[in-house]
């Protein structure tokens, strides 16, 4: 008799647990907002247009921050040091073949362009991490520069993730090699000579501004082409 009652109670407890777990799982699914599913999409996910919108917003934000960082750095450290680069030292992403003007950008295939953008973002992953850490060692670095470098590094990661999603959506064929440029400028950021060190920072920030502008432009072109049918 007691065993029967024990069995019954244990069964009840198990049932309760099962109900709870299922409830949790179901509600967990429900917690995440389910966006509107685009037509024909297998997975009910964010639409491509919305992905591009977010990507463009992020890229614009990153470019905005890097412009400000460069301007602040230039104003504070570069004046009077002759950093005006007559011939800017090549950025590490120069090895990547990127469209240099509008015609080239329009002629390139969108998938290739996306790949280029992703490659660039990947190339900047490492430098941004080091930049955020090395900037703090600069003497009397302004607070704005410090937090902006950290912010850029974060947003860059997010943008990369978003673009990888887009690539996953857009690419019909194989994804392609993961190409990116290796950055080897870390020793220059850690030079003992203050002037040389600052010049290395100046160059890196200059390259960052330029590449963020490139990425922003490419994404806008892609968005207008793919989403708005070249009629933004």
């Amino acid at each position, binding site marked *: 008799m007691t065993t029967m009652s024990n069995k019954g109670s244990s069964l009840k407890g198990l049932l309760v647990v099962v109900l709870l777990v299922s409830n949790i799982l179901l509600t967990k699914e429900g917690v995440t907002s389910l966006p509107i599913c685009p037509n024909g999409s297998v997975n009910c996910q964010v639409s491509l247009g919305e992905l591009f919108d977010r990507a463009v917003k992020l890229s*614009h934000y990153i470019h905005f921050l890097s*412009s400000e960082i460069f301007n602040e750095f230039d104003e504070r450290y570069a004046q009077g040091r002759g950093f005006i680069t007559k011939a800017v030292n090549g950025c590490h992403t120069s090895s990547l073949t990127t469209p*240099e003007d*509008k015609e080239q950008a329009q002629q390139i295939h969108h998938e290739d362009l996306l790949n280029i953008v992703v490659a660039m973002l990947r190339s900047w992953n490492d430098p941004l991490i080091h930049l955020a850490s090395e900037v703090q060692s600069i003497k009397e670095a302004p607070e704005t520069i410090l937090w902006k470098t950290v912010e850029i590094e974060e947003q860059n990661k997010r943008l990369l993730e978003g673009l990888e999603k887009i690539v996953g959506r857009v690419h019909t064929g194989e994804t392609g090699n993961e190409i990116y440029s290796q950055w080897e400028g870390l020793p220059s950021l850690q030079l003992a000579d203050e002037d040389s060190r600052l010049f290395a920072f100046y160059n890196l920030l200059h390259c960052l501004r330029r590449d963020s*502008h490139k990425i922003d*432009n490419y994404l*806008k*072109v892609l968005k*207008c082409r793919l989403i708005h049918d070249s*009629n933004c």
Partner: protein
Amino acid sequence: MDLWYLLFTLALVCANDSLSASDDLLRWPQISKCRSPELETFSCYWTDGNFYNLTAPGTIQLLYMKRNDEDWKECPDYITAGENSCYFNTSYTSIWIPYCVKLANKDEVFDEKCFSVDEIVLPDPPVHLNWTLLNTSQTGIHGDIQVRWDPPPTADVQKGWITLEYELQYKEVNETKWNKLKPELSTMVPLYSLKMGIDYEIRVRSRQRTSEKFGEFSEILYVSFSQIGVEFVHCAEEIEFPWFLVGIFGSCVLAITVILILLSKQPRLKMLIFPPVPVPKIKGIDSDLLKKGKLDEVSSILASHDSYKTQLYSDDLWVEFIELDIEDPDEKKRVSDTDRLLSEEHLKSHSCLGAKDDDSGLASCCEPDIPETDFSASDTCEAISDIDQFKKVTEKEEDLLCLDRKENYESLPSLANTDAQQPRVSTRSGNSQPWPPFAGSTDSASPLIHAQLSHQNTLTTTDFYAQVSDITPAGRVVLSPGKKSKMGRAQCEGCMEQNFTMDSAYFCEADVKKCIAVTSHEEEEPRVQEQSCIDNAYFTTESLTTTGINLGASAAEVQAPSSEIPVPDYTSIHIVHSPQGLVLNATALPVPDKEFNMSCGYVSTDQLNKMMP
């Protein structure tokens, strides 16, 4: 200011010098700016300087070099962008690639600049500005418009190659300062709450989204509401002061005030609206009476209040009195004590009757030359106003008594009615009146006695008790009317009345014993001594003591030397004759029976009954 003026003149002079010697000084050609309007082409502009005039007209060249190039190249187009300019078309333009341009001739380099094209973007101004009316306010004074424009035609916004943001500025035609709106991406901007009767000017400029520099302003757009035929009612811009409302409000306030004033006049309504605050009041007594000084009315009212009687003497702990209330019709013939009291009121000033020397503190508020009886029961001057009246009356009675004694027999019949004068203690401090019953019972006594008694009674009406002070061989019983009577006697005998307190109206003081002793042994009719019968019958104890001594001295002249026989406050009845007489042992036992109350001169009726056979 003077310093600045001096510096300015110096600068002018130098400039003049420099200008005058401008031929010697060369101004080098400079690259003023390099600009790309749409991120596809760019052009550079320079200034000549005066070099061109001075030296041989060597051509100035603009050389450029891309980063990857090895040497300098010359400008491809000097014409398209105008004079002293170099135009790079799309084939020569590469974005995100650093360029260097330099201005030079064959011999020397004048200027050099390095940049990349994405850094020098300055868009063209927007075109095709126009506006439409969105809606108007209900009053027709303000309206909302929407301004639209097209992006610069050179900028390829549609393909997303360049992103522009626009800044709109507007102002009224008469104003000088432009109102700026926040830069926006859209080419449509609403303007809210514009005044319909005024014309506006609008202009727009654009810039690349992440840049800071704006391009040139567009052409000014003129906004005039009358053009589109909108009905405009010329209303005053500012809200005028609402005089009408102010007038109405003011009139209402005035009306309310007038109504309130009118209501306050009418007592009924006033009672209704503003009920009176209850103030302490005695029934029947109007405060106006007191203010006017009509004390007789007040006292009559007070007399009707039993509570007042007890209150007046309630705090008088020394007083034990029996309130006798024996009706006597004859009494009515006499002026009531109250009246007598009150009639004397005006004789004495309302100044408080204080003693020269007393502990009650009344001396401070009293005239020093008016020694008066001090009543300890009265703490304030005003409180003893009635007492003062009483004093006055008693004093007058004393005088009367003194005078009556002179014409004792003459006025005997007239005074016969006074024998039964009841000692109404209602208006005076109550003291026991042990003798009145006794006095009343001696109706069969000799007229003299009657007279005496009447006198005594008269005095007892004002005084508290009567005591037998002497028995004449003729069978007369000389009753002294207690304190007052003693006083009166003393007065008649020349004694100065002493200052008595209300509670000790019957003798307790040994101060007057001398006086009494003098009077007690007197076998003659008490003579009235004028000097003693003064109006002011009240003396302080001090004066009494002094006078006592004097009296003692004077008495010695007048009569037999007084023996210091303490006059007891009571007299025992030794022999009771037939109704004709009553022999009283004047020299009563100093220590009477223990039954007797040894308190000051006060014999209770019970004791009296015991004394009486």
